[in-house]
């Protein structure tokens, strides 16, 4: 019956820190920035001390570390720009409730902090310039919250308890019903396909620092909750599991396809985030020890690379005031460190070896091969080809090509650069030693224990093959050194301005910028139209129209005109008479 005391403590700390920062930021901008950074760091240290004392079990532990990392980095982005004071408070609240949610071990704590995080993020988005994303966010996540409330009520009525272990007292069919509802809640939070509409709008409209946290940490509420539902359901899950795996793969492919066609960096990243979370849903849906370990590892790597990408785009926005891919270009000259960060981010997104994106996808593929469904497996592979395409579009349109802006810009502010380094280190280290993450989840996934799968820090072994990620990384680096040596010994080169290139003897004026960037994958847009035309958004719009029609019908009943009501009363009397007489009255 009691709300988890630890969660309340964490939440209160964060709210106090947020309030303090808010008042400091009201005093002066500089004190707000310093205060924001310091209070943020103190509250994160507090969380770690707290959780060190209570030493939570594996997955919670891992999520704490990940969300803490994302929290610090997004705070760094917040303090490196002009952030309205109120955003500090709301951000602190959202972060506190996320931590508190992960910390809780009963449904009532989970529910309270799930709703609180929704409210804080909603307020934060609508206090910005564009509000559409905020309302969509509230609509979808509020619905998710209601579903969760129903779950809570259902379990309390059946067992009289609120803690997670109460699930064990349910009958098998009740258990499946309850946990399906729970899974839906968290599927909305992750933006799995039919419930994804809110995500691109919310990510676009939120403050850049908040977006980093939304993608990296708030979506992890969804991952953690969905994991919890799978974990509590145990072996009876496998029936519904395949449906979830298919939902996941549809999300991964379609979101990847939509990401190709976006013209705004933040929307592109929002779809890419959706697509990557699709892999997590696939892994959870297959529900064996290998796939679930892969899913959690992928959630961690998603938290790292996706937040890194949002962070770089946020830093670019600070300098250029735009995230429109058609307006940007050639920033590599002025922002080289951001370019390197983004480059490693996209390498991890497409899952190329010496980064963290690879081991998690590798594990998911092995789980899929063992599972043996060819449709699921090949579509997952298709999704990762799409990831390669949209990530190249991102790095090309922002950093490569000719420089398109009028005035020169500087490198990203120092705190933002520090945030990038925070992400780059785990991105590379965990890519070589994925076992360090898997250690956290060794115990909880044992109970799914189907394929025989083992690991050391650098090696993963499944029935299909063994891979030493450290060897892969070392071979990779060694041959790159060789290639660089070949390059270096071949002599110097002569730098020419960008305009000085092959144009088939056509004279180009200085004002005209030759740049192929708008509508980058126009072939796909043109020829895949038959697929892209049917969007789920249209379905929702039709649903909306349907409600309009129903409402119209109802308004014909409640017209506000006395005569109508008189008719209704007469009709009512007739029906009552009819009922009393028991049929048509006989007049003769």
């Amino acid at each position, binding site marked *: 019956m009691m709300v988890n005391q630890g969660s309340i403590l964490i939440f209160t700390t964060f709210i106090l820190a947020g309030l303090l920062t808010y008042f400091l930021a009201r005093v002066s901008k500089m004190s707000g920035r310093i205060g924001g950074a310091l209070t943020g760091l103190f509250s994160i240290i507090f969380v770690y001390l707290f959780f060190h004392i209570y030493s939570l079990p594996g997955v919670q532990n891992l999520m704490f570390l990940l969300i803490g990392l994302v929290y610090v980095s997004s705070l760094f982005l917040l303090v490196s720009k002009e952030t309205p004071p109120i955003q500090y408070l709301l951000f602190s609240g959202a972060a506190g409730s996320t931590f508190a949610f992960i910390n809780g071990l009963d449904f009532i704590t989970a529910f309270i902090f799930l709703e609180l995080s929704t409210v804080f993020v909603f307020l934060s988005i609508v206090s910005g310039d564009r509000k559409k994303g905020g309302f969509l966010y509230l609509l979808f996540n509020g619905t998710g919250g209601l579903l969760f409330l129903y779950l809570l009520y259902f379990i309390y009525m059946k067992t009289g308890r609120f803690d997670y272990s109460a699930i064990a007292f349910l009958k098998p069919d009740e258990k499946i019903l309850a946990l399906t509802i729970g899974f839906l809640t968290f599927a909305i939070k992750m933006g799995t396909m039919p419930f994804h509409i809110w995500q691109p709008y919310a990510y676009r409209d939120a403050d850049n620092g908040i977006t980093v946290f939304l993608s990296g940490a708030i979506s992890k509420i969804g991952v953690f909750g969905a994991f919890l539902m799978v974990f509590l359901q145990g072996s009876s899950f496998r029936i519904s599991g395949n449906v979830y795996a298919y939902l996941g793969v549809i999300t991964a492919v379609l979101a990847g396809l939509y990401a190709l066609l976006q013209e705004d960096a933040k929307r592109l990243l929002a779809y890419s985030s959706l697509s990557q979370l699709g892999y997590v849903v696939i892994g959870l849906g297959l529900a064996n020890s290998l796939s679930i370990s892969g899913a959690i590892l992928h959630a961690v790597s998603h938290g790292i690379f996706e937040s890194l990408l949002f962070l770089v785009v946020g830093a670019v926005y600070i300098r250029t005031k735009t995230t429109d891919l058609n307006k940007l*270009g*050639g920033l*590599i000259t002025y922002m080289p460190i951001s*370019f390197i960060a983004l480059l490693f981010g996209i*390498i991890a997104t*497409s*899952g*190329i*070896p010496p980064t963290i994106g*690879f081991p998690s*996808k*590798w594990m998911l593929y*092995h789980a899929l*091969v063992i599972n043996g469904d*060819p449709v699921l*497996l*090949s579509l997952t*592979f*298709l999704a990762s*080809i799409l990831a*390669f*395409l949209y990530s*190249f579009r991102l*790095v*090309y349109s922002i950093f*490569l*090509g000719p420089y398109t802006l009028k005035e020169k810009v500087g490198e990203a502010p120092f705190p933002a650069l520090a945030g990038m380094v925070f992400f780059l280190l785990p991105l590379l280290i965990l890519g070589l030693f994925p076992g360090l993450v898997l250690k956290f989840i060794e115990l909880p996934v044992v109970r799914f224990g189907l394929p025989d799968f083992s690991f050391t820090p650098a090696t993963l072994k499944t029935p*299909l*093959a063994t*891979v030493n990620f450290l*060897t*892969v990384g070392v*071979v*990779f680096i060694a*041959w*790159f050194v*060789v*290639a*660089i040596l070949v*390059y270096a010994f*071949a*002599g110097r*080169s*002569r*730098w*020419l301005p*960008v305009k*000085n*290139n*092959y*144009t088939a003897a056509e004279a180009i004026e200085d004002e005209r910028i*030759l*740049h*192929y*960037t708008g509508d*980058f*994958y126009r*072939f*796909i847009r043109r*020829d895949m139209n038959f697929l892209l035309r049917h969007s789920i958004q249209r379905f929702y719009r039709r649903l909306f129209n349907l409600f309009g029609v129903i409402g119209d019908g109802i308004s014909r009943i409640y017209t506000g005109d006395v005569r109508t009501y008189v008719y209704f009363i007469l009709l009512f009397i007739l029906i009552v008479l009819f009922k009393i007489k028991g049929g048509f009255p006989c007049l003769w």
Partner: protein
Amino acid sequence: MFVVKAILTAILVIILGLLYGGIARKVTARVHRRYGPPFYQNFIDVLKLFSKRLPTSHGVMFELGPVMAFGGMLVSLMFLPVGRGNPLFTFEGDLFVLLYLIVVAPLGLALGAGQASNPNATIGIARGLTLMIGYEFVFFVSVLPIIKDMHTVNLFRIAMAQSGSLSSLNAVRYPFSFAAALISMHAMLGEKPFDQTVAPHEIASGPMVEYGGKFLGLLQLYHAIAIIVETGLVVTFFLGGFSMPVFFLLTFVLFIMAVIVNTVMPRFRIFQAVQFFFLLPLVLAVINIIINAG
């Protein structure tokens, strides 16, 4: 020992790749009823390109792009079992490692050409990446029945399981998949009708348009290795289990087959090519999956 073997393999593959390229030029010329350059012309070209002074450059990424392409292809080569007696890193050479390492090289080329900011280059890249949706996907589907039946994704084990009689070759056991894989290999090599990325008459050799001197030399070396890695992937999956000379002979045969098709073919429009992959080769690959399951 380990390192020496790796370096020797790399040098051998580069030499063979350049040789294959030279012979391909000769074959193309003979089909066109020309005399053609000598078969060692590619060696001369590479030497010439590396000895050029002060090649033009457009920036740091422009210079690192070819380096990344060359290095990435060398790394992929290390995880491919080259023949029977010579498993380099194949104790860990796993299909997924190789499939993901192979894309490092195109990524490097794309990044380098991206900084050149020549629209021809970028259009070439956009086409190349779009085409990837077609051939990578089809290749993956075509090897699915093999990894399902053998219950491994270790490339060396897959190759070795085919040694013995002729009927144990995967090309015989999975003929439709083999056909699909050959078509997707054709697109990986970028031969007509799938040469939209380079398309010399249309977009002036696409990503390579701004490159010259040592950068083009590096790209030539990258291309030489890519020929062997891409044909070698098909050989490993469908014609594996032979000794090293036979392995190279088979890659040569597959490559020359692709070149002969190339000489007489026109070019698809880009999305026609992708659609083609989702019609004929994909259906072929799926047929074999269904036969295999039933």
